[in-house]
């Protein structure tokens, strides 16, 4: 397993970050369809890790294992080991609801609730009881919007509908909503695929700032985006991890033929 060996070397090189999620031999089945074949990957703390690969390669499926969103699909079955800070998240002691509060998620299409901007952000803290009173809640909402870089645009209309914002603003609102429940990790499933270049630039800038305090795993179709924002990259192909490494190294000197083919645009 050459990949495994390389991974260990890199882990040492990223020692100051430490591993927060460690997955070993993860297999995912949708009914009879074997979607993910023995994926092993370590995610470092306070870094942006991007998952790239052609459509249907299993990168979104892998992402959805990390907060057990796959549980909502009836026919889905996950085997293998996914450790978050050393605890198996599929273990019996883990409550998936609390897991999802710790591992937030931003989706491909901006999906604010058809409620006010304030209520969108306040929803998470409300259901988890993070605020003791109205002032606390106000504080959480405002800081979350600030962290998401949205506060200037919306502070005058916190109580107007979240669906009335532009696409890019909606996506940043969704990020603010995820931040409000104080996660450690944020999963992003192609967060910019529905956005125009300017909105994309803003979200990318935001991701870059957020990595100071959060661990971010992003699925993206854009190799440029992966190169711009991530420190580490994993290349998926046909349900397997082909290559993992520091982003710079993976894009400049890939070791696997398939990686080379994909990043040079020969397939995918």
């Amino acid at each position, binding site marked *: 397993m050459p990949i495994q060996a390389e991974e260990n070397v890199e882990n040492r090189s990223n020692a100051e970050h430490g591993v927060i999620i460690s997955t070993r031999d993860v297999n995912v089945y949708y009914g009879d369809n074997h979607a993910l074949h023995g994926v092993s990957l370590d995610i470092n703390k306070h870094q942006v890790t991007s998952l790239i690969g052609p459509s249907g390669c299993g990168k979104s499926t892998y992402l959805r294992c990390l*907060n057990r*969103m796959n549980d*909502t699909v009836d026919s889905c079955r996950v085997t293998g080991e996914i450790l978050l800070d050393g605890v198996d998240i599929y273990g019996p002691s883990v409550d998936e609801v609390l897991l*999802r*509060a710790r591992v937030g998620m931003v*989706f491909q299409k901006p*999906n*604010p609730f058809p409620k006010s901007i304030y209520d969108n952000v306040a*929803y998470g803290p409300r259901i988890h009881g993070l605020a003791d009173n109205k002032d606390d809640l106000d504080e959480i909402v405002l800081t979350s919007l600030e962290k998401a870089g949205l506060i200037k645009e919306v502070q005058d209309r916190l109580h107007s509908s979240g669906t009335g914002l532009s696409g890019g603003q909606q996506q940043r609102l969704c990020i603010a909503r*995820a931040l409000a429940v104080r996660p450690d990790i944020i999963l992003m499933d192609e967060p910019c695929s529905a956005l125009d270049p300017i909105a994309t630039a803003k979200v990318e800038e935001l991701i870059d700032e957020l990595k100071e305090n959060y661990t971010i795993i992003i699925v993206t179709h854009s190799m440029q985006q992966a190169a711009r924002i991530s420190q580490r990259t994993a290349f998926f192909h046909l349900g397997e991890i082909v290559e993992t490494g520091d982003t710079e190294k993976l894009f400049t000197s890939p070791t696997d033929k398939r990686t080379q083919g994909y990043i040079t645009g020969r397939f995918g």
Partner: protein
Amino acid sequence: MTDQAQKAVGNGWQSEKYIKNLAKRKRSERRFRLTGLLAILTALTLLAILLFSIVSKGYSAFVQTTITLDITFTESVIDPNGKMDPAELRTANYAKLVQDALREKFPDVKGRRDLRKLFSLVSNDADSALREMVENDPDLIGKTVSVDLIAGDDVDMLNKGYIDRDAVEDDRRVKDQELVWLDKLEADGDIKMRFNSGFFTNGDSREPEKAGIAGAMVGSFYTIIVTMLISFPIGVMTAIYLEEFATKNKLTDLIEVNINNLAAVPSIVFGLLGLAIFLNFAHLPRSAPVVGGLTLALMTLPTIIIAARAAIRAVPDSIRQAALGLGASKQQAAFHHILPLSMPGILTGTIIGLSQALGETAPLLMIGMVAFIADIPGGFTDPATVMPVQIFLWADSPERAFVEKTSGAIMVLLGFLIILNAFAVVLRKKFERRW
């Protein structure tokens, strides 16, 4: 390049074959439009005929013929002891006052049979109106007042033109002699038409001029309340459970198929079910709105479940995922987001289901709500009837005057249904969301 394009046009798009094909396509489209237009016109015409026939027969139910008579409130008849005792005032023979007034108007009518005919010009319910007057104002005793009394149903029918004066006497409910009296009254300006308020305030009666739909309206109200209280919560909860919580397997598939089939079961079968369970097994009171409501709830449930499931399914999955992704439990996602978002659709389906229940007759026949009930029900367990059953009962009655009552009651029922459906449309428009 341009040469080539032109050549292609010459050979392709302007060739005879293509032009023919295009003309054929256009003809076919015109034909389809014409057929659609015809179908709509036919439907509208039939609807117009239906409404016209109901309204033209039924509008006269809202007016009533009265005969004005000078009634002398003779003290010796009403209050022979002069004590003004309310109990005595209540039981006095007010009919005699009407008879006296008629005798005075037509002094030359003699003989028991003629007199009985004369007295029947006025409704035999007229005395209760007089009693009410005296009870409200005892000072009337001893005075002579001109009073509008409700005419008998045959006089009413004649006055509304439903009885042909020129028909052979034997085929006519109103005989020649009565026509003479009525002509005299008419000439004196004593026959009038007025708004029939009794139609909305009285219960059912064997006397058409006295029969009203108040009892049926109140019965329908109680029945629908029971139906709504049972079928709405159960239906919505079932839909949420099936859509959001139940795993998809053979069993839930079977349940789904059965719910869809139940919606198509003839309603009288639900009546039999209600009879078996609520009356024969649970021994609930017969003819009561509570049993009618329960039976109609059984019938309405599938409609509400199907509508609610469709509304829940129409909520985009992204909302569900957004909530779950934030760490909401399935229940929180369902009740905080999916239910409120699907509420307009659920309410529309519920109102349509309830208006269907409001117009339902067959299942209620099975549980005894078809009985003749003159009293206006005072609660959920009182014997009652409902509007469609009342219509059915009146349509079955032999008196000519019940024809207009039947159509009038249909108009009232249609009015309620239109209001309910308009309400559903308003709800849908008001809460419609885009995302």
